[in-house]
């Protein structure tokens, strides 16, 4: 069945311990789109993400993924609809990359089964697509930050879900790695037609990699739509409260810079 709207959020108010952090959120995400959630710290980006895979139950409103209310589903079913690439994981015990990636098979396993040969083959295939096949035998803890993020991506892709959430996956990486990894992640998502929702705090990354952008401030959406249209000076100033400008480089590329630098 072809879905037009994969994620539908209506009237969502949600927060922690009874205190709302998000107010009256309406959101629609189309199939296969890459949507960036942008906003300053404390604007509710991560909370919104946690509502989508039902880690936080809403105080009001509902979240639907492919027409199903996620809060009424059990964990296993949610995990077959929505996967997560976390920011970074602190693995206390050292797993091999292959073992880490194969965890993505969990939602499709029986209680007493463990992933079989077919699953391992699929994992290998995904790794080859991403380009990390040579890391399979390595210990996860010994990889660089960027490599670890790619392993986590492979795990999420193995889950084979229609929706993938990425929680600031590259914030802790250096400049070139940020772009390389993010490009790879979202490229993979696009080629598989996975609807991706990614939280970012760098407006430039949102501008380059996302089809659509939703800007949050203090728990409310102040703008949402095609990234080209939404990422303008007034919206960004309103969100970040800084003097920000969206400028063009000589080659016609748009960049987001603080006004103080833009002016000089």
């Amino acid at each position, binding site marked *: 069945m072809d879905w037009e709207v994969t994620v539908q959020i209506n009237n969502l108010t949600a927060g922690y*311990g009874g205190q709302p952090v998000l107010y009256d959120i309406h959101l629609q995400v189309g199939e296969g789109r890459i949507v960036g959630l942008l906003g300053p710290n404390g604007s509710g980006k991560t909370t919104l993400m*946690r509502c989508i*895979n039902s*880690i936080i139950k809403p105080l009001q409103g509902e979240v639907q993924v492919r027409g199903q209310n996620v809060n009424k589903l*059990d*964990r*296993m079913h*949610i*995990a*077959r609809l*929505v*996967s*997560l690439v*976390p920011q970074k*994981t*602190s*693995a*206390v*015990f*050292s*797993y*091999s990359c292959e*073992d880490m990636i194969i*965890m*993505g098979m*969990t*939602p499709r*396993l029986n*209680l*007493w*089964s*463990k*992933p079989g040969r077919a699953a391992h083959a699929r994992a290998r295939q995904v790794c080859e697509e991403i380009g990390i096949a040579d890391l399979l035998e390595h*210990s996860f*803890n*010994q990889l660089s930050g960027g490599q670890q993020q790619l392993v986590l991506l492979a795990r999420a892709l193995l*889950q084979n879900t229609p929706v993938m*959430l990425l929680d600031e996956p590259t914030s802790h990486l250096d400049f070139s790695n940020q772009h390389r990894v993010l490009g790879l992640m979202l490229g993979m998502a696009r080629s598989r037609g996975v609807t991706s929702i990614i939280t970012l705090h760098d407006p430039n990354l949102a501008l380059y990699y996302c089809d659509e952008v939703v800007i949050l401030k203090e728990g409310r959406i102040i703008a949402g739509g095609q990234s080209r249209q939404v990422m303008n000076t007034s919206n960004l100033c309103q969100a970040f409260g800084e003097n920000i400008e969206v400028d063009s480089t000589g080659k016609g590329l748009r960049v987001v810079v603080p006004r103080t630098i833009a002016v000089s």
Partner: protein
Amino acid sequence: MKKIWIALLVFAVISVIAALCLGRYPIHPGEVLCLLLAKLGLTNWLPGAVEEKSIVFWNIRFPRVILSFVVGAGISVAGCIFQALFRNPLAAPDILGVSAGACFGAALAMMVFPQFVLGIHGMAFGVGTFAVFLAFTLASRSPSQSAAVLVLAGIVVAALFQAGLSLLMYLANPYDQLARIVFWIMGSFQVASWDKVQVVVPVLVSCMLLVVAFGWRLNILSQEDEEALALGVDVKKWRVFYVIISTLLVASSVSAVGTISWLGLIIPHISRFLVGSEQRRLMAVSAILGGSLMLLMDTCARSLFESEIPISIVTSLIGAPFLAYLVLSRKGGGLGSDRPN
């Protein structure tokens, strides 16, 4: 990987053979073989001297060998579970207070109704499991549902029962009850008999099989809560399941033979060093390794000197230096991440 498995199985077999042949009651390995074959019905030939040894062999030594192997395996598996559940390489099986509770229960039984043998073991098991239940209830009242809260609750409960135990020890008659309590706390396989084996072994083995069968989920639980949930594992429910199983493992062991310290902490580390962190493999290896080492240590405890050494002394003398070695060398198996955070 295959080589490690073979080496382990060989080690286990050697431990069993050594345990059956060594002891203060002199039985020659050849005689052991005769006894085993005779029991299996393969031979009727038993030299005269061997006949009288069969009583001690079958009633004293054999059940002890079985019990120490299975208890060693059970405690090691419980150690794996707790380290995974609490994402803490220093988690030991008594982290939720089951040992403290069991000791308290046993001491209470020894002082209040010493006539009933079943009373001591039953009370130890009952109070031990109750302690974990108490820790769980306490943790569930906290707004935070993380594993760390459970550990804190366990510390509180353990402290409570430890205080109760100290009180009982203070009130106890020093010549009799106190010595008994202290000896029980230090743990010993001395009273291994077929009765004990019949009660304890099925429980331990069933729990171990169950947990290895569902072992894959434990890998997921050892990730961060949010990731585990995202991978489709209901963290809360599965945590309860694993805590129940490991509590059964530890409570059964402690109620039968007293506290055995250190084993549940170090065996998972050795196993992790050998086969990595994948839980199913880890638990299976820990069971075999833990059983064999427990067997060897118990054989030392009962054979080295004329009188018995309480088993916890042997495990502590070996366990503590080993842990020091792990900390100092920071070798494999992850005593903390290798990446600077």
